[in-house]
């Protein structure tokens, strides 16, 4: 199975580790990622505030490119804002032919058109729906035993379109983390807002949001994210946020596919853990312990055979 891949701007800049770890994990899971050639910005959360039509035309252009280059393939966007923008243009034009026509007019200059049947997918959706916990579990070589992870879904992967999970009580990341062998923190901040672009326009409000999330993460070794903006707000502004809320303490923040890569036996250098801005000693020590333990186990049970990629056995056509 393979997907048309839209990395989005952040994954080529401040969120390189999200891009690299996603590609590695997909490779390990025998899933193909075909990057859309010539993709451009989807407008993020800002364009809606400037032009309603532009907010639809920008993602429509990428979907038009995907339809041309990889007809019939689902479009995968790991960034939650990119995912929602692309999903939104499909949802809003599906039953509004006049709007669909306007959007198509806007992208007609490059001879592009929307495919009304295209499916826009979030990383979590693909992992939990197409792959499933069982296959993820089979790919695990170093279970994250003893690691307490706080799953952080953020907003736009879940709302306003409840496509693959319960938007009020999401479980998809919980299930993936359990498949990795981690202990999942049950907390009430999993789907609350990180402040998003308020960090640029009203920092005090955004810092309060981040501080609330960090303080709820409590005893977790790390928070797992699936959005570069959530990640940026939680890690890069962590020190400033900790000053807002005395109950909060430093906690590592990593992308979900980074944790998946580690559990699948990749090294911290492979998943670019050095690029993360908030990796605590507590997380590093827990990972080291895990690594040592896993090596002993794999030596005893001669588990090394499992490292051979099973991709050749699975069908790659779709």
């Amino acid at each position: 199975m393979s997907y048309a891949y839209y990395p989005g701007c952040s994954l080529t800049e401040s969120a390189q580790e999200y891009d690299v770890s996603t590609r590695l994990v997909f490779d390990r899971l025998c899933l193909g990622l075909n990057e859309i050639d010539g993709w451009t910005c989807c407008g993020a959360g800002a364009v809606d505030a400037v032009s309603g039509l532009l907010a639809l035309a920008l993602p429509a252009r990428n979907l038009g490119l995907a339809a041309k280059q990889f007809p019939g393939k689902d479009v995968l966007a790991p960034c939650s804002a990119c995912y929602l923008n692309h999903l939104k243009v499909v949802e809003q034009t599906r039953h509004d032919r006049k709007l669909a026509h306007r959007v198509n007019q806007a992208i007609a200059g490059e001879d592009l058109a929307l495919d009304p049947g295209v499916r826009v997918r979030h990383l979590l959706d693909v992992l939990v729906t197409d792959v499933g916990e069982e296959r993820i579990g089979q790919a695990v070589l170093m279970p994250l035993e003893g690691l307490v992870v706080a799953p952080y879904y953020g907003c736009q992967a879940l709302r306003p379109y409840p496509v693959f999970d319960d938007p009020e009580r999401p479980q998809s990341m919980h299930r993936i983390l359990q498949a990795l062998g981690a202990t999942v923190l049950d907390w009430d901040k999993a789907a609350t807002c990180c402040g998003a672009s308020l960090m640029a326009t009203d920092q005090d409000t955004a810092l309060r949001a981040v501080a609330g999330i960090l303080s709820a993460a409590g005893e977790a070794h790390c928070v797992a994210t699936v959005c570069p903006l959530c990640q940026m707000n939680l890690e890069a502004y962590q020190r400033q946020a900790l000053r807002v809320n005395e109950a909060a303490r430093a906690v590592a923040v990593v992308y979900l596919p980074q944790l998946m890569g580690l559990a699948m036996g990749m090294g911290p250098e492979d998943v670019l853990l050095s690029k993360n801005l908030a990796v605590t000693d507590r997380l590093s020590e827990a990972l080291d312990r895990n690594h040592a333990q896993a090596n002993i186990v794999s030596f005893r049970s001669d588990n090394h055979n499992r490292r051979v990629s099973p991709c050749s056995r699975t069908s790659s056509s779709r």
Partner: protein
Amino acid sequence: MRTESNHPTTLVPPLHGEGRGPHAVDPLDEVRDLVRACMQCGTCTASCPNAASMDLTPRQMWRSLLFGFTDEVLRSKTFWMCSACYTCTLRCPRGLQLTRAMAALKRLAAQHGPGAARRKGIFYQAFIDNVHKYGRVQEMDLMFHYFMAMRDPLLPLRFTPVGMKLLAKGKLHAPDGRHKGVLDDLFTRVRELEGNP
């Protein structure tokens, strides 16, 4: 909430837009259409993570809007505090697209609102200019132009610690010009289409 006396006392929205031509409408009418069915239950306010930073609560703002208090709404900071988490949209028992209404208010306030409102729109405009110019967002260039447009010498200081961290991790780089101009045609077409709805 009201401090001035020149407010309409009827429930009929006042007519705005004189001088905008024969088909002129109140600039906020498109938002009114989005929230017309609001029944004032307050689910939006209760669900909003940023309500504490707002002057009008979301529920109050929809009511003010429907009562025709265009200026109060345009002056309020409520919609600028929306972080697009979509919780209100998800939970609204009337199924109203409230996050969309918030975004529309940001856009309309930047066009028709008081000077202070236009200033709040600077970040969004800087973002779009950056996308137009480079095709893909260039974070460093975006923040540079945002700071320049804000003309606030203290603002960059708030972002310096983060900038240093990103620099140390090799995450800041000069703008990538490879996709320059790719979106020129799309932007031109959108401008033409928006001129002829």
